C-alpha cells in the first residue's frame, strides 16, 4: 500500500534520513523503531508532506506522491497522529474531531456524524468530555483524542508518531489495545515508537532505524527475540570500544 524507495531527507543542515526503503502492506501494523534521533519522525514528516524528500520515491496505492503538498496527501487517504498529539488547545473535543474529517471530502454531514458516533464508541471517555477545550485534557485523553481525530479522516492508512510518549504505563497499555482494535477493524497502521517492546507486541513487522539508515527488518516476533536490537538501543560499537581500550592502556601505562 505504502512504499518508500531510497528516500533521503534533510532537516535543516543535517541529513536526517539517508536512503530508506520500506513498505507497508494493506491491513498490517508495521512498527518503525530506533533510538532517539534515528530519523523516525523525519520519515513520517516526509511521508505526510511536511518535509520534502531530496532523493528517492514515495508511492501510495500505486500513485507517486513524492513531493506532494501536505494538504493534498491528507486528501488522498493518509492520516497522521503526530508526535506530541498537537490537539488544538482552544477548540473543544468535538471540534477537534470534526476537523479531523476535513480531508474526507466526499463524506456527507450524516456520514461525518456517524463517524463521530463511531469514534465516541471506541473512546467513551471522549464523549463524556466532548465540550472540554483541548488545553483542559490530560495526557492520556489527549492521545485518545488525537487518535480519534485521525480516525475521523476515514483514511486508508493511519500513521502514529510516538503515541506512548510521556504517558503513564497503564495508559500506554490502553492506547496499544485501541491501536490493535482499530487495525482489526480494517485500518492499516504505520507505528513509530521508542517503546520498542510494546510496539512489537502488536505489530506484524518492524523496521529498525539508526542515524538515518535502515539497520534491521524482520517479523515482529523475530525482532523481539533479536539480541542485536539491544545493541542498537544501548549498544557499544567496535571502533569506539577500541578508542576506550587504548585510553585505558595509556592511563595504565602513565
Amino acid at each position, binding site marked *: 500500500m505504502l512504499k518508500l524507495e531510497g528516500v533521503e531527507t534533510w532537516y535543516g543542515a543535517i541529513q536526517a534520513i539517508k536512503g530508506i526503503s520500506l513498505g507497508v502492506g494493506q491491513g498490517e501494523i508495521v512498527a518503525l523503531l530506533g533510538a532517539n534521533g534515528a530519523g523516525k519522525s523525519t520519515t513520517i514528516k516526509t511521508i505526510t508532506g511536511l518535509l520534502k524528500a531530496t532523493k528517492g520515491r514515495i508511492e501510495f496505492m500505486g500513485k507517486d506522491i513524492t513531493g506532494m503538498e501536505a494538504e493534498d496527501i491528507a486528501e488522498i487517504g493518509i492520516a497522521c497522529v503526530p508526535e506530541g498529539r498537537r490537539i488544538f488547545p482552544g477548540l473543544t473535543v468535538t471540534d477537534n474531531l470534526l476537523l479531523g474529517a476535513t480531508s474526507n471530502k466526499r463524506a456527507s454531514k450524516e456520514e461525518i456524524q456517524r463517524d463521530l458516533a463511531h469514534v465516541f464508541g471506541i473512546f467513551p471517555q471522549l464523549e463524556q468530555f466532548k465540550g472540554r477545550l483541548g488545553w483542559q485534557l490530560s495526557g492520556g485523553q489527549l492521545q485518545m483524542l488525537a487518535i480519534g481525530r485521525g480516525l475521523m479522516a476515514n483514511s486508508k492508512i493511519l500513521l502514529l508518531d510516538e503515541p506512548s*510518549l510521556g504517558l503513564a504505563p497503564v495508559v500506554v*497499555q490502553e492506547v496499544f489495545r485501541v491501536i490493535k482494535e482499530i487495525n482489526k477493524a480494517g485500518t492499516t497502521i504505520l507505528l513509530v515508537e521508542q517503546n520498542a*517492546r510494546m*510496539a512489537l*507486541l502488536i505489530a506484524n513487522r518492524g523496521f529498525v532505524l539508526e542515524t538515518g539508515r535502515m539497520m534491521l527488518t524482520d517479523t515482529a516476533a523475530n525482532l523481539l527475540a533479536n539480541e542485536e536490537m539491544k545493541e542498537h538501543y*544501548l549498544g*557499544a560499537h567496535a*571502533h*569506539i570500544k577500541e578508542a576506550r581500550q587504548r585510553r585505558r592502556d595509556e592511563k595504565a601505562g602513565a
Partner: protein
Amino acid sequence: MPTRIKRLLAPAVLVVAVLMLPRLVTSNYWKDLINLSISLAVACLGLNIVLGYAGQLSLAQAAFWGVGAYTSAILTTQFGLPVWAGMFAAFFVAAFFGILLGIPTLKLSGHYLAMATIGFGIILQLILVNAIWLTKGSDGITQIPSPWIGSFELKAPGDFYYVAALSLILFTWGAIHLKNSRVGRAFMAIRENEMAAGTAGVDTTYYKILAFALSAGYAGFGGWLFAHSCSHYISPDTFSFDQSVIMLVMAVLGGNGSAIGSIVGATLLTLLPEMLRFLKDSYMMFYAAGIVAIMIFMPSGIAGLVKSMPLSLRLRAWWNVDSTAARQVAAAAAAWENSGGKPNAFSIGDCPGSGETLLSVKGLAKHFGGLKAVDGVDMEVRRGEIQALIGPNGSGKTTILNMLSGLYVPTAGEILLEGRAISGQKSHYITSRGMARTFQNIRLFGELSVLENVLIGQHGHTRSGLLTSILQPPSQKAEEAGMRKKALEMLAFVGLKGKEFATANSLPYGQQRLLELARALASDPKLLLLDEPAAGLNAAETEALVELLFQICDRGITILLVEHDMSLVMNVSDHITVLNFGRKIAEGPAEVVEKNPEVIDAYLGREVSNA
C-alpha cells in the same frame, strides 16, 4: 605598495574630500542640507549601534535627537552657557535618557521592545510640547546661538560645516573601532544569540544598557549639531515618531550593522527629496514603495549590495592582505607548520583525575507549574572525569544542564561548584566561575566569523571597556593580539585551522559543533557541559569527537555530557548517571549501568502485560 602608505591613503582621501566640499557646493541652501544630513547621519550611526550591532529595535531615536537639541538650546539660550558646553551636555543628557529606556526594557525583545521604545519616544515628545516653562512648548526655541572658536563665530553654514564634518569623522571612526573590539563583539553576540552570549561570559544586562546609552548619546550629539546650525530654531514637531521611522529607514537602507552605510543612508534620504522635488506630492509614495521594495529585494541595504560587488571584493582583498589579524593568522599557520602540527598544550590545571568533587548537586528540582521536570536529583562530578547524564526523552537531562549553566532558576536544591553556591546565578557569572557549555541546537553567533565566535568566548577573561575599545591604545591592541593568539590555538586544537575568517553559518554542521566547542574552551573552563555533542554527526565525526574529548580531559578539564548516542556514552564515560521522569534511577561505571534492568526498561520499554 608599502603598508604605511596604504594606511595613510584612506585618511588622506578623506581629508581632501572634506576640505574640497565647501568649494564645490556654493549655495547656502545646499550647505544647510549637508549640515542637516550630517546631523541625521550621527543619529543614524547611533541607531546603528543599538540596532545594527546589538540587535535591539529602538524606535525612539528621534526623541533622543530632540533631547540633545533641546538640552543644548535651553542651556545656551536660557542660561547663557557657551555652545561647546551645550555639546557635552547634549551627549550626556541624551545618554542618560538612553539608560532610562534601557533599564525597563531589558527583558523585552521584538515587537514588545519596539512598542516600548515608541511609547517612550512619544511620551518624551509630549513632555517637550507641554513643559512650556522649560521648552517653550509648541512655539519652539528661536535664535539658538552658533559656536565660537576664539573670536570667530561659526555662523555661516559653510563654516559650521567643518565642525559637523569633523564630528562625523570622529564619531564614525569610533563606531568602526567599536565594531572590531571586545565591546563591539559583546554587542554583536547579544544580537546573534543572547542566550549563548550569556553562557559565553557576556553580561547581557550591562551591555544592553550600554548600547542604549551610547546610541542615545550619539543621537543627542546629532541634535546639538541640528540645533546650532540650519535655521537655529527647534520645535517639538520635528522630533516625532515619524522622524524615528525615517531614521530607521536610513539605517536599514544603508545596511544594518554598517557605520558607513548609515551615513550613506542618511545623506541619500535627506538629499534625495530635494532632487526629486519634481515628483511633488507623490514623492512620499515613491519613498514608501521604495522601502517595501528594498526590504524584499535588498535586505542587507546598500552596504550589503556593495560588499557583494566584484570590484569591492578585489579592493578588500588588496586592503586586507596586510591587516593585523590576517598577518597574525598567517604567522600562526607558519609556526604550526614548523612545529610539526601538534596542538600546543593549553594547560588548565595539572594531571587529571585527582578525584576531588568539582561539582556537587543536592536535591535539585525544577517544576514548571504542575510539571515536575526534575524531581530531586543528587549528583557529583569529580575533577578530571568524563561523566555522562543519560535518560530517555523528557527525563530532565537538558533541564538539569540549564539549571547548572544559569539559564533556569532551580525550584529547589543547591548547586556547588568548587564549594561555591551557584544555583540561581546568572549564566555569565557561572561562566566566569569556570563552567562553560555547548547547546543541543547549536547556538553560534551565525553572522560573525569563526574567529570572532571564539574571541567572544574569551570575553570573561579580558578587560577592555568602552573607552579603550574606541580609542584602541597599545594596551588594548596587545590584549587583542593575545586573544587572537589563544583563539587560533583553540581552533587548531579542535581542527578548524584555516577557517578563521569564514562565517560561522557557512560551516558544515559537524564543523559548527566543533566551533561551539572551541568557543566554550576559550573561556578556560574547569567544567565543560556538553548537550548532545554527537547529535547529527556521522560515524567518522563521532570518532573524531571522542578523540577530542579524551584530549580535553587530558588537559585537566572535567566533562559532563548529555547524550543519546549510547555507543559514545558507554565507551567514553568514566561515570554515568541515568535519569527517568526527572529522577535518578541508576549511576555507576558503564559496565554496571548497561546491565541494570531498570535502565534497560527505561530505554527499550517495559512490557506491560495485557491482563
